[in-house]
């Protein structure tokens, strides 16, 4: 393999790792927020 293929493979791997990690943190955060909001609403309704 040429050096450029190694270079491209390494950068693609690192960019993918960075993108997956960032995406996971952001989506987990949004998912948790909506679940918390739903539970708070349910609890609010239950107390009324």
């Amino acid at each position, binding site marked *: 393999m040429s050096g450029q293929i190694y270079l491209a493979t390494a950068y693609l791997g690192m960019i993918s*790792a*960075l993108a997956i990690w960032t995406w996971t943190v952001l989506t987990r955060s949004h998912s948790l927020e909506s679940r918390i909001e739903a539970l708070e609403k349910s609890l609010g309704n239950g107390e009324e």
Partner: protein
Amino acid sequence: MKRLGEALTLAGMAGAGLTLWLGLTWAPSVAIEAFESPDAQRIFYWHVPSAWAAMLSFLFLFIGSTMWFFKRQQWAWRLHVASSEAGLATGLMCVLSGTIWGAAEWGIPWDWTDVRLNTFAMLTLLSLFLVLGRRSQPDGIETRDTFSTFGMYGFLLVPITYFATRIWQIRHPGPVVGTSEGSLNSDMGLVLLAGAISFTILIVGHIISGMRLADLELRLEDLASKYEEVI
């Protein structure tokens, strides 16, 4: 805090993108006769900053673990959680890029006799253990204490990893910055500095976001138990 974490993460990613572009187009080539694979040398512009970011994560992990263990601070546990995930992501980036560079330059991806490679891999495995272990265990004082202990003692590997190439020069190259033996020219050093700053901003942004995430998880658990009581 939500916006700060996301803003820093995005700024860090933009900086990392700029570093990548400068490393590929602007940084000078290395001497062809000095390297087996001069093209692959450009992996260095993200490999070193990701190693730096991993070391910072392990430092934050140590601070979070110690402050939780001795002071029982809730923010410290969230820091432990966020920095173990950050250490895993950046550690994997560094190991992955290093093995690909090793395959290009040395002809083998890994050297089991090299202290730097193996202690860094142990640090990455430690963060993998902390991330997976925490997800499989119920949250509680005992669980937190156990993982914090690993976070504290695991930090011993950081100075060993840092000084490894100064003490035992086996296969991993020695230091190229902050030493009189450094062989980095000023343009290369500038790109590397841009990478280090970008990855520092990125890791701080990710850790802030990760701490918020840990806080949301705890709130959700708390609300879920309240919900069960009401039902």
